């Protein structure tokens, strides 16, 4: 504890001292020529978005400035600064990310989109974060909505939505290149160039590449978690008319990551540790047509095709996804804002099993169709608004699912927003819960010479997990100086996933070797409640100093049905910290020198035997010239190593997260 206080003082005293020094008066901008003015960089974060302030949902936006000053190099690392989001790094290339609980390497209650393209995998309803390494210098904003967003956002938006938007070619011009190295990982480089072809046509290209080495272990030796990726893409943005905006974009990537796996074996010692490498690649093309019909009516049509491929010792999966969505917003009368839309998604895959992961149907295509309508009604002019809406979703597994929500927002003055919402969302079955069989453990059976092998098998009757969420939120903003955003929630879940004993053990053969098969089957025999709250405060005490503070509380209990034989799924609640908090400080020491800090605390994860930890990142950014910027970040400063999560249920090893120093040089031209 003493050490923590000392660390805290070491971090804060320089900031207080520097902010006291940082009182020199601003140079007169009107003395600059126009050309010089065009080259002045914007330092302070943009003003709060009106839309965000009045949104009747728990929403947090990570801006470009937040990203640049975080020193983060991946999307999951960025999400650490978002209240209500649980992030645990498993090793150099794996993360567990969830919102409002249910975290794990295969967390399955989150909808993640990149430029409107869904990136959670229908195989397990989770996200392969290793395959989403878009260059962060090209990310415009990351919107995080905690709580169900199913009505507007669609399938899998149960506990939250993460909506990542990259820059529009229209809003960036010229080039930016960024390169550097991380002492714990390796070198990295990214770049983007954009230009205007004529007054209506804009384009951009971007690319990124990095190489992460194996994590060095504290006792010597190394983990098996190297990771490398090359990724590139392009976008064309055309204002076809005053009211029509067309966007065409594509993205390609290829990478390789290393992993150490512990798999069950039929002979002593009954487990086998293998060093394995996974190849992954993919690509997508997306077209979007946005039409402003009138000031109160706009339409959007979007379609994309996406291919992904992954191969390791456990399985090989090739997947194609085609998606088309239409959305129309209009105001039939001044007091109604209606949004309606419909969409269709087809995904088809080819799955190659291994000795450890089997599958019933190697190829399967799945349809997902939806239609939604939502009306925002002004009950009292500028003060009270009611939003009601519902989504009808049709999928091949559980057929029709209805996901309604009702939201009420009160804005008594420009400084206060009070909102409440009740919504229903479902997490439809993933392919693995229906079709896949995974060998999880082997041990000597009571019968001499016979090994018992436990597997978890898919269940053709697996149904959707359901959530009814109640939320209450409050926002306060006094000009630009101080703002607060608080939300509390009470979530009631039913039909949560369990793994049940089915029937008696049977004798099976692996080749000619007999073994005793003990099958478990996915089922829906658990209910549960979670509750908690999140607070995010932003304080701007000086023009050049900003503080962000956030805290997250999460409690809950999962209760298997009386008929359930599953004793471990209800422990999953303890994969989440009951308390986490952060403090971020942004200080402009001088106009061209930034000193930033992130202090982050995560409570214990009892089910993972992980103690709580502090995490301190410090960053110095120097805008050396108007074109060149240099940034030095020290990550995980307080400890040489700390571990954040245990091995994954598939037997993938976790690794400690080392202290690291990152240097980045950015050139804008």
């Amino acid at each position: 504890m003493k050490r923590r206080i000392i660390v805290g003082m070491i971090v804060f005293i320089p900031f207080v001292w520097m902010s006291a020094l940082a009182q020199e008066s601003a140079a007169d901008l009107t003395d600059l020529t126009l050309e010089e003015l065009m080259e002045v960089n914007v330092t302070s974060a943009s003003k709060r978005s009106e839309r965000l302030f009045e949104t009747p949902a728990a929403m947090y936006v990570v801006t470009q400035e937040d990203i640049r000053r975080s020193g983060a190099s991946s999307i999951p690392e960025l999400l650490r600064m978002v209240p209500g989001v649980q992030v645990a790094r498993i090793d150099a290339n794996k993360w567990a990310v969830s919102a409002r609980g249910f975290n794990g390497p295969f967390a399955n209650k989150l909808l993640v989109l990149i430029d409107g393209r869904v990136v959670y995998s229908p195989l397990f309803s989770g996200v392969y974060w290793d395959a989403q390494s878009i260059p962060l210098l090209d990310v415009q904003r990351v919107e995080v909505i905690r709580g169900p967003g199913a009505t507007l956002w669609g399938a899998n938006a149960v506990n939250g939505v993460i909506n990542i938007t990259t820059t529009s070619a229209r809003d960036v011009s010229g080039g930016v290149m960024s390169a550097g190295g991380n002492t714990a990982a390796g070198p990295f480089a990214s770049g983007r160039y954009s230009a205007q072809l004529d007054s209506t046509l804009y384009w951009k290209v971007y690319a990124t590449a990095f190489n992460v080495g194996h994590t060095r272990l504290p006792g010597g030796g190394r983990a098996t978690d190297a990771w490398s990726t090359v990724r590139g893409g392009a976008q064309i943005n055309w204002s076809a008319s005053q009211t029509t905006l067309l966007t065409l974009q594509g993205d390609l990537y290829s990478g390789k990551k290393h992993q150490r796996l512990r798999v069950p074996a039929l002979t002593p010692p009954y487990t086998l540790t293998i060093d394995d490498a996974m190849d992954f690649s993919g690509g997508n093309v997306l077209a979007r047509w946005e039409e402003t019909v009138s000031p109160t009516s706009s339409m959007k049509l979007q379609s994309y095709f996406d291919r992904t491929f992954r191969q390791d010792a456990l399985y090989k999966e090739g997947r194609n996804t085609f998606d088309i969505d239409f959305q129309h917003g209009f105001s039939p009368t001044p007091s109604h804002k209606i949004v309606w839309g419909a969409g269709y998604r087809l995904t088809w895959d080819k799955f190659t099993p291994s000795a450890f992961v089997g599958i019933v149907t190697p190829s399967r295509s799945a349809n997902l169709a939806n239609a939604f309508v939502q009306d925002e009604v002004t009950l009292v002019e500028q003060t009270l608004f009611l939003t009601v809406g519902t989504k009808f979703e049709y999928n091949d597994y559980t057929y029709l699912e209805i996901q309604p929500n009702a939201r009420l927002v009160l804005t008594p003055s420009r400084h206060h927003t009070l909102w409440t919402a009740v919504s229903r969302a479902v997490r439809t079955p993933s392919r693995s819960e229906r079709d896949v069989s995974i060998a999880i453990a082997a041990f000597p059976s009571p019968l001499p010479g016979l090994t018992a092998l436990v597997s978890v098998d898919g269940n053709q009757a697996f149904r959707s997990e359901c959530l009814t969420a109640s939320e209450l939120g409050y926002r306060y903003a006094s000009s630009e100086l101080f703002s607060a955003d608080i939300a509390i929630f009470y979530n009631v879940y039913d039909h949560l996933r369990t793994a049940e004993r089915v029937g008696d053990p049977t004798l099976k053969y692996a080749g000619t070797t007999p073994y005793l098969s003990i099958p478990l089957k996915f089922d829906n025999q658990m209910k549960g409640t979670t509750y908690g709250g999140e607070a995010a405060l932003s304080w701007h005490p000086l023009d050049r100093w900003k503080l962000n503070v956030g805290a997250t509380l999460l409690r809950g209990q999962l209760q298997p049905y009386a008929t359930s034989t599953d004793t471990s799924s209800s422990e999953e609640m303890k994969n989440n910290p009951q308390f986490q908090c952060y403090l971020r400080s942004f200080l402009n020491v001088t106009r061209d020198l930034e000193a930033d800090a992130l202090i982050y605390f995560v409570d214990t994860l009892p089910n993972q035997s992980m103690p709580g930890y502090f995490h301190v990142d410090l960053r110095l950014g120097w805008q050396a010239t108007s074109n060149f910027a240099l940034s030095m970040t020290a990550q995980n400063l307080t400890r040489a190593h700390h571990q954040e999560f245990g091995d994954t249920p598939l037997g993938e090893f976790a690794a400690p997260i080392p202290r690291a120093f990152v240097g980045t040089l950015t050139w804008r031209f």
Partner: protein
Amino acid sequence: MRVTEHVQSVKETRRARNIGVPLALAIIIAAAAHAQPQPAGEYQIKSAFLFNFAKFVEWPAQLLPRGDSPMIIGVLGDDPFGNDLDDVINNKTVNGRPIVIKRYASAAEIQLCHILFISTSERKDVPMILHTLDGTGVLTVSEIEQFTQLGGAVRFYLADAKVRFEINVDEADREHIRVSSKLLKLATIIREQKRE
């Protein structure tokens, strides 16, 4: 095999980096030798642009009858500038004219104004506001997306942490405002397509 190759490549990159850091520093120091403008707050920069618009735009004579008639810069709706506009423009003159800053809650309050900044809080009412101001010789400025497409004159946007602006030259013509080539050459030019 692959792992060994990988480790080898990581080692090689580390060696390369050992030369890279001094090299990068040398480049930075060389580049820093040129004096460069310092970063500033978004609305400080935008205030300075408004000042320059006042300087590089010519209004019809009836809007500025005397040589010392004040130049009026208005802000309509929720003011995003805070004190920035007043601080930056404080007691400045352009071409001998004092600059006066006015704030309006609604378009109806506007009597005489040369440059009008329309806040994003007025997003929904832009077509109506622009209609009201048609032919009054006001240079309208906003950050609202599609502002110039809707018939506004100037739109600020951010590109790579720098403030950029679009000018709708057709709207400037309609208002009989002459925009200096000094401004035009730095702006993104927007032309309205002929309405059928």
